[in-house]
């Protein structure tokens, strides 16, 4: 056990709230885990040595700044604002955050603070795969801040719900979000984390999609600098549920994101796109794990990344088709562009298929730009260097264009382009 993990255990033993019985179980599981090394499969390409001996104070409201949370133009989202994992309040259109009790929520939406919400399970995912979700377990035992979000059965909540967390102090923080989308309900949820100070944070969200529900989901892990970030979004899909999820990741000292998806009801459909764009020295690790437990499920997953000078990207995409999951359609594709010799990409698709009547395809590439495309652009007068920028950026722009929400893609595209242009010039 590392010094850091010892401090987690020590802190966990002092947490006393109504979740404590559940936390106690999670702590047991946590104590059974070994501290990951390079030989631990889930951490083979992501070293935790910068975390091992780190001791930071736990976050408190005292560090919160008063600066405004950036608004996504044209989105008109309902923003649940966190700073360093501490809940600040609910804000609309960049106004000052209000306490949760005073917020006027759209019909069909109810939101409670984690500790005000009875009968909440901590995490089914961390329980099922403890060795995989070490930081999920850490979050289980320490997260006292968070939200429980319910979309009422049959309700359509048109206003996008954004949970935004700014890391602004050199502290350690843990928060979580639980979302239940009721039967036949529809909603859009954006998890938006950013900040680059020398912090340690865990941020996990768990989504339960009831039968016939629809969720549009975005996870923006836009950290940077010295931040050490561990997060995840976990989904349970009920019968005929539809999920459209987009992950966007920048790297930082360590940035690790786990996307887990379980098909627990038949005929569910999941589209998952992920884009990562790593500037010099950044590290980003995306692990996705799809479980087809029942027949007739569909998953389409596309992850694309561009890695600049001395950055490191890790992609691990697992698809597990259980014995009974006949007629599953599952596709996984990971494409990467390496802009420099100093950059590093580790990509690994993992398929485990135990049913015989399924369609499953996967591919992983580290590519260079096609000369044919470059030539075509040049024959139209565009200089080679500019054509390269257009093509390289086009490679991820394709997925950005697929985002169902135009306000979000229009907000994101220029930022990605700016980031990319800076990477190109290195």
């Amino acid at each position, binding site marked *: 056990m590392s010094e850091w993990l010892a401090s987690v255990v020590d802190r966990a033993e002092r947490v006393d709230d109504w979740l404590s019985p559940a936390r106690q179980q999670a702590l047991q599981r946590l104590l059974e885990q070994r501290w990951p090394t390079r030989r631990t499969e889930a951490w083979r390409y992501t070293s935790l040595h910068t975390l091992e001996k780190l001791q930071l104070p736990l976050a408190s409201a005292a560090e919160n700044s008063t600066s405004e949370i950036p608004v996504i133009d044209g989105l008109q989202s309902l923003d649940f604002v966190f700073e360093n994992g501490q809940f600040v309040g609910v804000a609309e259109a960049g106004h000052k955050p209000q306490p949760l009790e005073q917020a006027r929520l759209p019909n069909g939406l109810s939101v409670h603070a984690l500790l005000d919400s009875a009968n909440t399970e901590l995490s089914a995912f961390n329980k099922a795969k403890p060795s995989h979700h070490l930081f999920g377990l850490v979050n289980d035992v320490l997260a006292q801040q968070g939200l429980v979000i319910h979309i009422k059965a049959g309700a359509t909540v048109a206003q996008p719900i954004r949970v935004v967390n700014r890391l602004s102090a050199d502290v350690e923080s843990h928060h979580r979000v639980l979302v239940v989308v009721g039967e036949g309900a529809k909603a859009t949820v954006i998890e938006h984390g950013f900040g680059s100070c020398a912090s340690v944070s865990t941020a996990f969200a768990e989504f339960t999609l009831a039968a016939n529900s629809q969720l549009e989901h975005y996870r923006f892990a836009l950290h940077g600098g010295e931040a050490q970030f561990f997060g995840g979004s976990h989904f349970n899909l009920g019968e005929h549920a539809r999920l459209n999820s987009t992950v966007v990741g920048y790297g930082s000292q360590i940035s690790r994101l786990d996307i887990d998806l379980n098909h627990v009801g038949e005929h569910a459909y999941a589209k998952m796109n992920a884009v990562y764009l790593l500037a010099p020295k950044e590290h980003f690790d995306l692990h996705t794990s799809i479980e087809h437990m029942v027949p007739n499920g569909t998953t389409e997953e596309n992850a694309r990344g561009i890695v600049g000078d001395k950055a490191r990207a890790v992609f691990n995409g697992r698809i597990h088709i259980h014995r009974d999951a006949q007629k599953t359609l599952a596709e996984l594709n990971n494409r990467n562009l390496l802009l420099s010799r100093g950059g590093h990409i580790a990509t690994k698709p993992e398929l485990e298929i135990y049913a015989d009547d399924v369609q499953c395809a996967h591919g992983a590439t580290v590519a260079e730009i*096609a*000369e*044919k*495309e470059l*030539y*075509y*652009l*040049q*024959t*139209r*007068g*565009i*200089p*080679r260097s*500019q*054509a390269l920028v*257009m*093509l390289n*950026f*086009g*490679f*991820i*722009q*394709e997925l950005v*264009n697929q985002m169902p929400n135009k306000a979000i893609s229009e907000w994101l595209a220029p930022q990605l382009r700016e980031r990319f242009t800076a990477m190109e010039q290195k």
Partner: protein
Amino acid sequence: MMLTIKDLQASVEDKTILKGLNLTVNAGEVHAIMGPNGAGKSTLGYVLSGREGYEVEQGKVDFDGHDLLDMEVDERAQAGLFLAFQYPVEIPGVSNMEFMKESVNTVRKARGEEPYTAAEFLKIAKAASQQVNLPLDFLKRGVNEGFSGGEKKRNEIMQMILLEPKLCILDESDSGLDIDALKVVADGVNSQRDGKRSFIVVTHYQRLLDFIEPDFVHILADGKIVKSGGPELAKEVEASGYAWLDNGDATATQGATA
């Protein structure tokens, strides 16, 4: 003189394809280059545009006072050379509109003209898309992404209209088109014939030349122009095919009349 090609020899992967080609094109002229498969028709377009892998072994090409072979691919385009591809490449992720705006403004800058603003460009792009009968939606897609063969060809002609080049090389722009699509392409080309702009229309069949009437027709065989004449030469080819080339019947005259 718009274009003067002298004794051009070029190879691909160490195989010589063009074997001493001569051609002179004056401003405002339309030249058709016909020939059997494998004669080097597409190679000519690629060599003139500067495609990588196409090695010039010998010869000179003067384009509007520039030493064409000394220029980069994009510089040739900026100087007013346009190649409409037989098989335009698909580039998902790069929006057609963004690509064309970038392209047109780069070329305008090279000509010493003011770049278009987004609004100005949208206006002329709309007009051009109507002219080639391509729904405006196609401008929002990735470059040629999911376009049919005919739509790709029309997209090429649209770019030609927007770029206002001095010399257009159309590489088998008729291949794979039905008669209606062919007319759209031909109308697009004819609308750009202004007495100054020159065209080289490369085609296997005479069909396209019913709609784009050439001033001169050249037969390209085995890397050389073996016969040149007026529009009537195309009719001859239509009637007798290219078999006569093998019979040693070709009255091989070096070079083209101009």
